[in-house]
């Protein structure tokens, strides 16, 4: 399975990469992934490529081949839309609802993509742990059946990877993604961001 994670520096993309890689490795699957480090991390676009259960493949997902695109930031998710294969799945942070833009909708329809958005950042703020937005998104993707892992597997991997003082907060965020997170309706985009 080929996954692309896109966002901006500081959203915890590298952590999610490690989490999914770790979950796959606990299952005995081969894993290869590629990360963004260094100057590009300072406020720029951060992308991780993750290839689970595949041997003899390179560290990057080729364009048009990804099964799943997780956009921790709406704009960055859309920027990497071309990575998804026909019939692939797209889950993005709700942002201002750009999934509802006519040409984005048309592309999604043409490529037969399954597309959802989640107000992960808002949910994370509501529970007082803004850093957990990335895990809410992971939980949501898994609950939609778009990740090859069960809730229990992800929980186990997360426990092993989290810093002791953050374990409970991280688990809460993940579970929030599984349970209470309504999927954002693809309504019209908000004006302010479109003018920026």
């Amino acid at each position, binding site marked *: 399975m080929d996954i692309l994670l896109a966002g*901006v520096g500081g959203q915890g993309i590298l952590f999610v*990469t*490690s989490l999914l*890689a*770790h979950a796959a*490795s606990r299952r005995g*699957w*081969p*894993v*290869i*992934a*590629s*990360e*963004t*480090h*260094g*100057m*590009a*991390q*300072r*406020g*720029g*676009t951060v992308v991780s490529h993750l290839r689970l259960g595949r041997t*003899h*493949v*390179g*560290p*990057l*997902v*080729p*364009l048009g081949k990804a099964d799943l695109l997780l956009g921790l930031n709406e*704009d960055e998710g*859309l*920027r990497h*839309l*071309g990575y998804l294969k026909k019939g692939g799945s797209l889950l993005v942070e709700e942002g201002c609802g*750009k999934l509802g*833009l*006519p*040409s*984005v909708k*048309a*592309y999604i329809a*043409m*490529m037969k993509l399954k597309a959802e958005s989640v107000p992960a950042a808002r949910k994370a703020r509501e529970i007082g742990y*803004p850093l957990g937005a990335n895990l809410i998104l992971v939980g949501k993707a898994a609950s939609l059946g778009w990740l090859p892992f069960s809730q229990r597997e992800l929980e186990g991997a997360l426990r092993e990877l989290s810093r002791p003082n953050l374990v409970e907060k991280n688990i809460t965020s993940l579970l929030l993604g599984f349970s209470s997170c309504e999927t954002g309706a693809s309504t019209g985009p908000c*004006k*302010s*961001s*479109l*003018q*920026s």
Partner: protein
Amino acid sequence: MGRRERQVLLGNEAIAVGLVEGGCQVIAGYPGTPSSEILPSAVKWGKKWSVPMYAEWSTNEKVAFDQAYAAAVVGKRAACCMKQVGLNVACDSLTSATYTGVSGALVVVSCDDPGPHSSQTEQDSRRMAWLAKVPVLDPQSPAQARWLAREALDISHRFSIPVMLRSVTRLSHARQVVEVNGPPPGMILPKASFPRDPCRWAATPRFRFLLHAELNEKLRKMEALSNRYARAFFPSSSTAEYPLGVVASGVPALVARELLEERGFSHVPFLEITMPFPFPRKRGAIFLERCKVVLVLEEPDAFIEVHLQERNKVWGRMTGHVPKEGELLPEILDASLEKALVDAGIKKRARRNRRRDALLQRAMEEAKLPRRRPTLCPGCPHRASFFAIKRAFPKAIYPSDIGCYTLGANLGVVDTVLDMGSGITMASGLYHAFQLDGLKRPIVATMGDSTFYHSGTAALLNAVHTGSRFVLVILDNGVTAMTGMQSTPAWDHGPDGSAAIPIPLERVVRGCGVEFLAICDPYNLEDMVKTLKEAWQYASSPEGSVAVVIARHPCLLHEPKAREIRGPLPKVTDRCKGCRYCLEQFECPALIWDEKGERVTISEGLCSACGVCLLVCPKGAIIRGEDG
């Protein structure tokens, strides 16, 4: 000693595992993306497996090389790690060390950066290895890199020669499930002993000639090894000539095989080269003999391509089948394969799905995706320093250097970036060039603390000695920040936590003959502007010289606690008239343009409460939260 286990490791961590498993006891380096994680990871594994080790972040790559080399001279297994441009700094030592050889083992890990993602060049370390006559290994994946790191130590010891392990960004920063065994039980670590041999370790030119012959003989013998590493694949044992073969090494080899399989062309003959130098001439010749043409896929530059003998049968960067610059992303490799398959007549040209491409482009345009460029973090003291410099000298020339602060270019306060140390040498060179025509222009150079230790001292000595006049601002955030918070010589401990002797910047600056030295906190903007003006006054006065200002404030990523003591978050009052001055001249990510209100707001999530924007706003519209 360790037990068998499988872990998801970064390529750099896998290299570290291989080194420690291979008995490496001395490791030195200078941080540089994408190489920085190797050294701390080696320290970690060394501790875990109780291998007695010495590790240091050296002042620069040449120093790192020499540290490791000395250990290898007395029989230890040693490694030094650096990025490709760091290898330039170590090149003087590297080219000489191959002549003398080593008695233990020495592995030079050099990480290339095709793209480039975080470098000033896309140079190919394999070409440097060729120049220095260093054998080089070119792994494809983290798992293979771990294995080859250990092999490199063994080869180095067996042939008494430094060996290069060449990595690239997509290998160093790839993650893969890697087997981690630990050193073999009962591994014997050699005791240091100095085999006194001045004809080797202190060879004069006459002996150098003999050593050169010895080196060439080693390389000749090693060709058998590189031939053995090279793996050729043919779909059948038929002796018929194949219309196309692919020769590849490193990450592109892995990707090319994946793409060929995906396209249904896995029957195309394939030659994988793991040791590009000394070049496996025999394997190369046999492969070429059986193919009408071959496509060479490698990064970041042509190396195998120039080593294959029958030039008219080779396609690659020199024939336009592979782009001459940039990273070989899967889609670019795919295009190269497509062109080669079509040109070789084994495939018809594929038609692009233009409708899909056009719709995707339209979607991107409609989504109005923001252009993102890397920028300094919220609360970064460098931003404050640059703002002060701009305010004090709006019309100066600003030579700068390599580090986070290169991003000062966004603020218009970085005019030149050549290489490590060039902030000072450029300033001095510019001064003398203008001086020839009797022109006096303020020149304000910037350089980070770690960069200053790395290669600033020779430059500053020279600038003072030659009577240059400029202001040097050392942006001292107390850490090698860009590469992930490594130590500097001002620290009291090394990468393994052992005690180190701190050498303060100001002592070094004074030692270079600098008379004017001031230290200020860039968060105190007004004070820094005043200090800068005084510095230039001194530098431009008849008895003046180079003036140095140390702008000292810790990196907020490194010392996040500092945030809590800075007080409440600033807020923007109604006095904001939406002039955008702070956005354009200060560019703090926490300052957000509110389209509806046509004014600036502060992002609570991003703001570090540094409070510098209070001093930046020309209308005084930003205040501390509690004041409102």
